[in-house]
């Protein structure tokens, strides 16, 4: 018909639906996306360089600020990597506390993912405020344990920093009893909502072999039908003692990625329930020197974070601070195929795909 010219618009660092300071240079032809160029670095604080001049204990607060929506699991991943490097044994009670905190954090992070995804779909603030109500309960639990709402600095090499107060278990019991009811409430409100179905069904379909080739991890990978979860594939800590399944969906579109978060929340509640019942008493931390000097060598510890496989690669030269401190950021690598998914779609779909992948700029830019 009529010849149209492409135009380039910056979906820049300051944008309500880019989950932080992520920027995209999108070339449009009307509403259709012709090309998309992601630009990173607007929150690059150089944590890997700073880590090289800090001791192993001083790096724990830095890991809180990596994926600031899931600080507890960042601590868990880093601490596991250092224990693998230094060969430190962790007492039973600390292992159970860590699993409870990590799974609570997974629920809170998935709540945020679904909340903001629906925020971008036009249900402005309503589902987000519902899900924030649950997140506040989880933040209260964390505040009871380590006094902070967002950057917990709770785990130490060799255990956890503080024991749980007496009123923690009853409060956790109450939360665990209510949570499935709330998840049903979300399912009831959202699962068959035709706007959600119309906006996400068949949008941004990611085939399984392409997902593996793009080294995608986490709920995005499982939404494409690949059954790969580090908690089952390479069990760390005490996850082999709990029975929970790894949910997967089939056609890998934005709707499946949304459903994955809901299903995983249910599994996390099951894990917490079992972990609560078996938490033994006893030591919460083994004695580890403050200036820990792990033997010369390297270690790669990884866990299944809410966003995907979060790994820490530590190289030690025997001195108290790591020679090299690398973070395998799942959110950054999950964005590898974001460009291919968006080309040819409409602009509104691109934001839904970005929301369903769920990135957190602290981890992407480090």
């Amino acid at each position, binding site marked *: 018909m009529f010849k149209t010219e492409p135009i380039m618009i910056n979906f*820049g660092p300051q944008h309500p639906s880019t989950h932080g300071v992520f920027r995209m240079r999108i070339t449009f032809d*009307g509403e259709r996306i012709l090309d998309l160029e992601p630009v990173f670095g607007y929150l690059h604080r150089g944590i890997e360089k700073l880590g090289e001049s800090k001791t192993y204990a001083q790096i724990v607060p830095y890991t809180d600020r990596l994926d600031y929506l899931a600080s507890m699991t960042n601590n868990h991943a880093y601490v596991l990597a250092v224990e693998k490097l230094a060969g430190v044994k962790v007492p039973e009670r600390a292992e159970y506390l860590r699993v409870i905190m990590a799974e609570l954090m997974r629920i809170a992070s998935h709540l945020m993912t679904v909340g903001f995804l629906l925020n971008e779909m036009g249900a402005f603030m309503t589902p987000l405020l519902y899900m924030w109500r649950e997140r506040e309960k989880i933040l209260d639990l964390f505040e009871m344990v380590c006094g902070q709402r967002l950057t917990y600095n709770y785990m130490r090499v060799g255990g956890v920093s503080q024991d749980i107060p007496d009123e923690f278990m009853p409060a956790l019991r109450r939360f665990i009893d209510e949570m499935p009811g709330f998840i049903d409430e979300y399912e009831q409100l959202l699962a068959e909502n035709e706007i959600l179905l119309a906006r996400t069904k068949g949008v941004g379909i990611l085939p399984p072999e392409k997902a593996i080739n793009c080294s995608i991890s986490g709920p995005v990978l499982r939404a494409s039908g690949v059954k790969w979860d580090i908690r089952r594939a390479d069990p760390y800590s005490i996850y082999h003692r709990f029975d929970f399944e790894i949910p997967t969906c089939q056609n890998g579109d934005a709707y499946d990625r949304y459903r994955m978060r809901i299903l995983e929340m249910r599994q996390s509640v099951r894990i917490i329930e079992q972990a609560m019942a078996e938490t033994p008493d006893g030591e919460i931390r083994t004695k580890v020197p403050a200036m820990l000097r792990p033997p010369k060598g390297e270690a790669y510890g990884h866990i299944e974070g809410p966003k995907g496989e979060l790994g820490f690669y530590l190289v030690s030269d025997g001195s108290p601070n790591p020679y090299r401190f690398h973070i395998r950021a799942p959110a950054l690598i999950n964005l590898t195929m974001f460009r291919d998914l968006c080309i040819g779609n409409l602009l509104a779909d691109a934001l839904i795909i970005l929301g369903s992948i769920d990135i957190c700029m602290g981890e992407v830019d480090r």
Partner: protein
Amino acid sequence: MLGNFGYIGIFLILSLGFAILLILLPPLLRLVGIVPKKPNPVKTSTYECGMEPVGTSWIQFKVQYYFFALLFVAFDIQVVFIYPWAATINQLKLFGLVEMIAFFLILIIGFVYAWRKGVLVWK
């Protein structure tokens, strides 16, 4: 006794006065010094998420945007006619209802035609 047109006159004056007041308020306040005046070249540049816009937006874009606007105008006018009808519905008994249904039908035909032609689906 003002008569009907008197009221319409007052209504007209009030609405025009209110519109003009709103237009003149910022410069007026600037004169008095309440609204600070600090001109800044960057302030008037176009906002694009904190970045410098590239290229011009004066380009040939798809004609489909025009159809959305067209349909919007059609249904906007329809709403304008519904207000007075709704206000005086009890005077125009059954006749008003039938009249409005006919008005709706005409517009719905236009909408169904646009829908069939797939004008709103973004190709």
